[in-house]
């Protein structure tokens, strides 16, 4: 999804006060795993 389409889709579905999130955030998967490191 490109930036223009993402913002258009968002503006149609949310209020005027909604933020214009980057497409990479909108595309973030709901399922994820977490890794934790202490890196010195």
């Amino acid at each position, binding site marked *: 999804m490109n930036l223009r389409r993402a913002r258009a889709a968002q503006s149609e579905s949310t209020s005027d006060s909604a933020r214009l999130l*980057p497409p990479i955030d909108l595309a973030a998967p709901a399922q994820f795993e977490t890794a*934790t490191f202490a890196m*010195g």
Partner: protein
Amino acid sequence: MDGVIRTRVGYAGGEKLNPTYHDLGDHSETLQVDFDPGRTSFEELLDLFWRAHDPTHASLWTQYKTVLFFADPQQERVAMASRDRLEAALGRPVRTEIRPLGTFYQAEDYHQKYRLRHVKELMTEFRAMYPAEADFIRSTSAARVNGYLDGRGTLPQLERELDSLGLSVGSAAGLRQYVAKRNWWTA
């Protein structure tokens, strides 16, 4: 790194409740990474982890200790197997600690996305995208831009995702130029 969704820094490994940067207790400074298992894996993250430090030297200072934390039995199995392969390859004992995660305490806001926070032009745009601090800290775009600013990633990787980061034309060009100069050998 492709597949990294979110990052945050914090404190883990100790018993002290609610540690802070200036009162860390027995915790170590820690990085937590949310990743898409369809695009990368715990094993690939471990490969990076092993390459990022000398695992044959034991850490002496708790605050800056190197530790691989596992969150569940599956991660423990993968971590131990990875450690065993590394030991076999090195022919020396791996002294990096591998231990259960326990509680991860997220660090103070000013430690999150540290590189990005110091680029005023980019922060102006991120503040517009994320009026709430918690949303900014959780942002995939912010995590990835912060990584590029910290010297991670390559120009081809940036080119693949630049249009999805939500930056203005000017800021996108500035980030590309920054990474291209740093990674001149890949341009």
